[in-house]
């Protein structure tokens, strides 16, 4: 059973649901985070191997052991990059949320939405 993958996919679905339904800006940010972290979980867990160790050479794990037992390091590097991207988007979105609150004293988009064509 791919329990890990299934959990990651469910997280992605929950994040999507949150993003579609919620109209509060902070909740939308949370939905986006859940979605992104679902993807991160998927990326990280796809690199695991049976009995795997961290891909770091130490006194107890010399280079030869890392080569045969180390987990996939590439998704970890990708997730590092992706986390920073996520932080940046969140920072921007929260700054805009501060502005939204400044203009309308509420964070609910459905309250402040105007009709446009």
């Amino acid at each position, binding site marked *: 059973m791919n329990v890990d993958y299934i959990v990651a996919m469910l997280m992605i679905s929950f994040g999507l649901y949150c993003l579609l339904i919620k109209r509060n800006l902070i909740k939308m940010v949370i939905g986006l985070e859940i979605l992104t972290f679902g993807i991160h979980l998927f990326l990280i867990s796809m690199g695991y191997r049976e009995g795997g160790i*961290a891909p*770091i*050479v130490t006194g107890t794990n010399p*280079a030869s052991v890392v080569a045969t037992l180390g987990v996939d390091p590439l998704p970890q590097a990708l997730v*590092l990059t992706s986390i920073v991207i996520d932080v940046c988007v969140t*920072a921007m979105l929260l700054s805009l949320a*501060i*502005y939204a609150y*400044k203009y309308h004293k509420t964070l609910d988009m459905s309250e402040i939405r105007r009709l446009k064509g």
Partner: protein
Amino acid sequence: MAGMTIIVKTASRLLFPFVLLFGIYIILHGHLTPGGGFPGGVVIVAAIVMLLLGYGADAAKAKFSPLQASVSENIGSLILVATGLLGLFLGFNFMKNAIPLGTTGNLYSSGILIPLNIGVGIKVAAGLAVILYAMLTAFEEEKK
């Protein structure tokens, strides 16, 4: 923000150098242990946040002013690009690890990874501080 109680103030003053040191340790050992420029920079900015919460925004700005922050962010970015261009000047391609590699496991090892980690550490710490100060101004305006 005027700051918090004496307990928070004392604790944050005592912890501040250690948190800073821990951040620098994480940055410098990025190529040996888990960590690197990004986590280290975040730990350093956590020290500034601690000061800010304990003593108020003015104390934090006195230690690390917004102008200093934005200038050091640019300097951090330029360190990254300059390290990349080093490979180009030494006759290789961009981002080539062209300086001596050292021995695996030593503090000096793996060539350009060290300057890159330092550059990104400076950049992340300064950049997050800029974001922090910028968001603070919104609340300061509201108070007036």
